[in-house]
């Protein structure tokens, strides 16, 4: 993985060597893999589903699937690609479940638009001192993205995977990955541009 969350310390044993050892019954190798991946998977899944408890459950389920299906892993793919595919599929399943629940829930139907409230236009923009957007605002914007855009944005911009790796994780062509990343970013920009409009407005007001 070329992700930014990757530990910069030299790793003596590769993930692929560890899963091979685990396939031969080395339980400790599995524990090392859990230790290596638990936090980065949690960050990915949490940004995907937007709920910490659900995210932690999904990450646990991901490791259980790895444990139960260890022999299905073949060294033709990178271990990181394999485990992210499992986690991503579980996260998407969770979102589908929620969607079904939402469809049958009258209360949610009535409050459908309340999950993402756009701040008052007159308020100051929700920007940090360094110019970045505040975490909760960006998280809500991620949650609003359709899953097919959300997954590529998270893998590319939050997790730092290469386009080729994303293509392998999602099992879609490289061109589709690039196209979805571009469209996902444009969608985020469309949803968040009001923040910058306010920024422009305040700049102009300060000049006066």
């Amino acid at each position, binding site marked *: 993985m070329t992700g*930014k*969350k990757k530990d910069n310390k030299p790793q003596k044993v590769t993930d692929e060597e560890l899963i091979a050892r685990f396939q031969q019954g080395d339980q400790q190798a599995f*524990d090392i893999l*859990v*230790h290596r991946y*638990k*936090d980065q998977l*949690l*960050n990915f899944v*949490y*940004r995907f589903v937007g709920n*910490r408890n659900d995210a*932690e459950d999904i*990450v*646990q389920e991901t*490791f*259980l699937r790895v*444990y*139960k299906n260890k022999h299905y892993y073949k060294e033709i793919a990178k271990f990181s690609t394999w485990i992210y595919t499992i986690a991503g599929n579980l996260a998407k399943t969770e979102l589908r479940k929620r969607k079904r629940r939402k469809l049958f829930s009258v209360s949610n139907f009535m409050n459908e638009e309340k999950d993402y409230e756009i701040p008052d236009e007159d308020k100051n923009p929700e920007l940090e001192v360094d*110019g*970045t*957007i505040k*975490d909760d605002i*960006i*998280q809500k914007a*991620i949650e609003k993205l359709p899953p097919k855009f959300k997954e590529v*944005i998270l893998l590319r*911009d*939050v997790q*730092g995977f290469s386009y080729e790796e994303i293509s392998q994780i999602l099992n879609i062509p490289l061109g589709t990955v*690039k*196209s979805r*990343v*571009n469209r996902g*970013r*444009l969608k*985020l*920009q469309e949803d*968040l*541009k009001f923040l*910058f409009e306010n920024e422009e407005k305040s700049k102009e007001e300060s000049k006066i």
Partner: protein
Amino acid sequence: MQECDKFRVHFSSYIEGELLSEERQALEAHLAVCTDCSEAIYQIKIIRRSLQSLPPITTSSHFERQLQDRIAQLNNTSPWMGPLLNLKHNWKIPAIGSAVASIVILGVLLLSPPQPNTAQSGNTEFRTSIRQSVAAPTGIPGATTAPAKALTSPTETQLDSTKNNATVPRTAGRPVQLVGD
């Protein structure tokens, strides 16, 4: 606006520096005259930076312990127990199974003829049954109507058989002697 759409598909490649020089020059020429597109590029860069600087979260302290418990649970479940454990989600299968089993047992009990008791030696019921089977053919009054006296010791058995010797043929005493065998 149609011209903008033509350039918008290249925004990500441009931001990541992956655009070929010819395409890049064409896009930059457009950005110089289009405020909407140049503004959009600026905003996407900030959004991307914001995504990259999201604070990392870590798993809870009990995460690995909980995972170990779930794995232990998985290992303790023998292969044939899996389907049985799944039955708890479908109460109809065990309910129907129990009903069928009860009917079969009841049917067998009602339809089968009474069998002589083949209990172990020393069993009180066995000895009582012997007494009944010995007494009944001889037509001893009360042998079938009077409740059989439970025999508790070989001595008592011998006494009983001695008492009956007057009317019961000698052979009748033999099974009683077997009680002690």
